């Protein structure tokens, strides 16, 4: 091999050099190789140690092959959003002026094959995903190379479908890289195994939106085809030579420790082996059925200490108000909070004071968590699973084992979506599989059963909010104060490691370690959009997870981000209170919102959903509202939200039967303005899905618990929406190229339904429902009252 270096050139903050690459044996598959002494001093260097790919090299992100095909890599793993397989391909194709089809391979998630880490969230929300910037750098480098190759100034080159033209000459991307090692170094920052991972830095020029031809089209998701045809390898399908199946025997309560392990009848289960580490008990066997049955037998004979340290869900909000410590954690204020709100309240002609309650909910993946782990005798650990943040998981497993991340590789496969549960690194089974594999000396597959997935996983945090709204004589809001209260909402400690007594990160506390987001602080996460309100106070109060400090296992009710985390808990009380304030003002709920908003995009989504829902402008409640009788009464409500650069508004039309308390959502309209719509069909499907999940959460979902643990255990005790309960759904996508950025679209739709349905219930009955879920028994009691 011989190399011939040329003078390095600066490309918008990146460094490009060119080396002639001579090797016998024909064309090489070459990306962009190594260079750049200056990047060795970059802060990212330390953070990336142990990653086989160097994120400062574009070849880690994008490979252009001599046959003109392109490969992209992203640390994000797909959770059903399709973004890595559709939008990311479109974005890269667009920035490179290549065709969508030219991107033939997407490598995502695997820690040894992807450069940047971070979670399966916020794919687009910051407008410029890593992969877009990486592509923009590569494009500039390719132009630079083409300019030299063709002897034509860069400014006179044009590119279409990966073919560069200028001065009457042409060269393809494939020809430019053929037989060469092309070197470009790009700036990155951040920490690989943190929740946000690495970020590509700098400001390479981006393609003007007006020239887009790939973005905006409804390309299909290639993974859908393989899943539907039964050709996909799911995490559940991974089988390794010598692999044992495992079932866990989890403690009796969220605070129980192990007294003694039950026996296993060797005559009945000759191949089963019980593994104990601290209070963690698992049973492994060569066949799954033997593991299941032997684990049941072991469980029936295992003795645990008892523990009763939880308030029980009937006393949840009383406990949170009266017993929880809200004083130790600093009170957060929103950016838009103003100074003086009391004088304005004093002048109010009318005042609304209300409190809203939001229960614990479950991520409730349709398949319980599972993982395969293979701990080699030399200490190398391989994990095969479905996970939203594989690099963070890698860090947690290394921490648990007292090793470095170089010794841990996480391989990512498709699985059941779990909506945020593993965005900080673990979903439940991964660490347990590692512990059992290490003890058994074999690869081990841990599969949680359905009740375990409800009872040993994290939950979406419960919350309550107190709201005061002052109206002037004209029915305008002159003062608004909201105080949000929520226990720590993100606990990323692997549960098996806690039970086993192995090292984990700290539980959420007042003062998190540097760089950690794991704390009791309750930040303001629902951006205020009613800029016409002059006097505003938004405060967030945080506390410890319920039972965690008292539990001898240090577990208690562990919380974790779930789809639209924290913001759902804050937007629900805000939007419901705004609807109540509109009613108090005698105003139409949509017009009232428009009258208090200033931003075009807020007003735009409200007007769009008003039209889509054929909304009749009038105050609530409806003139036919009734809270009695066995005839359904109808009503409608609205909600609006800004999240991750996307504006949302939704209208729900419901029918409620007062005598039974049963609510049917009949029509659901939602308007979405993400700025640039990258893939209309995929976005529509994501929004429809979020809409259905949101209706499910509003009407049905509450994780119940007693003094010892979670009592939700299956789909009967934690029901979710069924097909015959869905409304007619209308999705309006507002494409706004002038915004110039991509807002997040796969997440937030679930938060819109709850405040809109509760407002619709008021419209139909004249009664204010201020807690979730809106189950028949609660609604019936409310309407009787």
């Amino acid at each position: 091999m011989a190399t011939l270096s040329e003078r390095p050139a600066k490309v918008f903050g990146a460094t490009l050099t060119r080396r002639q690459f001579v090797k016998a044996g024909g064309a090489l598959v070459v990306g962009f190789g190594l260079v750049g002494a200056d990047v060795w001093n970059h802060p990212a260097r330390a953070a990336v140690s142990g990653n086989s790919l160097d994120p400062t090299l574009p070849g880690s992100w994008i490979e252009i092959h001599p046959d003109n095909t392109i490969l992209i890599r992203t640390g994000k793993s797909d959770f059903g959003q399709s973004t890595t397989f559709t939008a990311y391909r479109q974005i890269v194709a667009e920035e490179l002026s290549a065709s969508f089809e030219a991107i033939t391979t997407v490598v995502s998630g695997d820690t040894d094959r992807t450069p940047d880490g971070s979670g399966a969230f916020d794919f687009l929300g910051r407008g410029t995903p890593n992969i877009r910037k990486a592509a923009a750098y590569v494009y500039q480098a390719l132009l630079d190379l083409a300019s030299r190759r063709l002897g034509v100034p860069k400014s006179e080159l044009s590119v279409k479908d990966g073919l560069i033209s200028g001065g009457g000459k042409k060269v393809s991307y494939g020809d430019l890289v053929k037989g060469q090692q092309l070197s470009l170094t790009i700036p990155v920052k951040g920490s690989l195994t943190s929740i946000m991972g690495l970020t590509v830095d700098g400001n390479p020029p981006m393609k003007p939106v007006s020239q887009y031809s790939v973005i905006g089209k409804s390309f299909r998701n290639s993974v859908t085809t393989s899943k539907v045809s039964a050709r996909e390898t799911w995490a559940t399908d991974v089988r390794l030579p010598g692999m044992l199946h495992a079932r866990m025997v989890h403690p009796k309560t969220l605070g129980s420790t192990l007294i003694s392990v039950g026996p296993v009848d060797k005559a009945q289960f000759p191949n089963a082996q019980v593994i104990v580490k601290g209070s963690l008990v698992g049973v492994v066997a060569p066949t799954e059925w033997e593991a299941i049955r032997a684990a049941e037998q072991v469980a029936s004979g295992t003795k645990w200490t008892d523990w009763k340290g939880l308030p029980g869900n009937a006393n949840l909000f009383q406990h949170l108000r009266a017993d929880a410590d809200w004083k130790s954690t600093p009170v957060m204020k929103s950016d838009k909070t103003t100074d003086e709100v009391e004088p304005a309240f004093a002048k109010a002609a009318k005042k609304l004071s209300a409190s809203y309650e939001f229960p614990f909910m479950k991520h409730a993946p349709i398949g319980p968590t599972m993982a395969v782990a293979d701990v080699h005798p030399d200490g190398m650990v391989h994990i095969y699973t479905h996970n939203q943040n594989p690099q963070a998981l890698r860090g947690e497993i290394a921490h648990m084992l007292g090793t470095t991340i170089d010794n841990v590789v996480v391989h990512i496969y498709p699985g059941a979506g779990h909506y945020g549960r593993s965005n900080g690194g673990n979903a439940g089974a991964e660490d347990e599989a590692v512990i059992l594999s290490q003890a058994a000396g074999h690869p081990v597959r841990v599969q949680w059963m359905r009740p375990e997935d409800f009872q040993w996983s994290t939950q979406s945090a419960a919350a309550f909010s107190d709201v005061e709204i002052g109206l002037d004589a004209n029915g305008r809001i002159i003062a608004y104060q909201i105080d949000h209260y929520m226990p720590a909402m993100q606990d990323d400690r692997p549960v098996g490691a806690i039970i086993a007594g192995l090292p984990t990160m700290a539980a959420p506390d007042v003062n998190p370690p540097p760089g950690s987001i794991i704390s009791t602080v309750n930040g303001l996460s629902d951006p205020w959009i009613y800029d016409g309100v002059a006097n505003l106070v938004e405060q967030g109060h945080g506390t410890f997870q319920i039972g965690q400090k008292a539990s001898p296992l240090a577990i208690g009710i562990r919380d974790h981000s779930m789809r639209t985390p924290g913001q759902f808990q804050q937007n629900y009380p805000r939007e419901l209170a705004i609807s109540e304030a509109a009613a108090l003002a005698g105003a139409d709920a949509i017009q009232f919102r428009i009258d208090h908003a200033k931003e075009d995009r807020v007003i735009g989504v409200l007007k769009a959903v008003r039209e889509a829902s054929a909304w009749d402008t009038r105050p609530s409640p409806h003139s036919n509202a009734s809270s009695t009788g066995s005839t359904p009464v109808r009503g409608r409500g609205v909600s609006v939200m800004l999240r991750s650069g996307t504006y949302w508004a939704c209208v729900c039309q419901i029918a409620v039967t007062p005598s039974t308390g049963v609510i049917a959502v009949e029509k659901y309209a939602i308007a979405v303005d993400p700025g640039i719509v990258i893939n209309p069909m995929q976005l529509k499907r994501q929004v429809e899905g979020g809409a259905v999940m949101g209706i499910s959460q509003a009407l049905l979902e509450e994780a119940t618990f007693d003094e010892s643990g979670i009592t939700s255990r299956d789909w009967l005790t934690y029901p979710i929406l069924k097909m015959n309960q869905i409304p007619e759904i209308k999705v309006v996508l507002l494409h706004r190229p002038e915004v110039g950025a991509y807002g997040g679209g796969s997440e937030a739709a679930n938060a819109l339904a709850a405040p809109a349905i509760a407002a619709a219930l008021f419209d139909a009955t004249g009664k204010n429902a201020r807690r979730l879920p809106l189950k028949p028994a609660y609604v019936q009691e409310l309407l009787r009252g």
Partner: protein
Amino acid sequence: MISIIVNGSRREIQAPEDTPLLYVLRNDLHLTGPQFGCGMMQCGACSVLLEGKEIRSCLTPVSAAANKEVTTLEGLPGRWAKQQGLSTADAAKTLHPVQQAWIAEQTPLCGFCQNGMMIKATELLERVEKPTIAQIKDAFTTSGPSAHLCRCGSYTAIIEAVQHAATLMAKGGK
């Protein structure tokens, strides 16, 4: 030893008779279309066709399938090919219209439940040529041991895909 006919082939099963069919299909026969969702017949992720009727393989012992015909997601193309009398060559490159429609409508989100959804759709469309939306909702909600559950909320897309598949089937899959 139990013998079952899976996707047109007779298979001898070594597993104990009380083993749920799901584990036999996934672990012994490497047919991984059906998924473990709840193990309680409450969700439908594990569905297969037994003699053309949708059942939950997670709690059905393999002995209940002895000498009967089981169709999994992997077997849907062959089932369709046989019904249409397609040649082996044509059958090899054909997907069942239900699968074609699921792709055309981009129905799955995470996709974990969709095995059961496509099995249920196949059962329905073999019985009712052109189901109404109400019939589709009924089939997926009340006709089996439990409703077929989708946590990602793809129900609208499923309804559209069933209607699409009905159209394809009426045209012989073209």
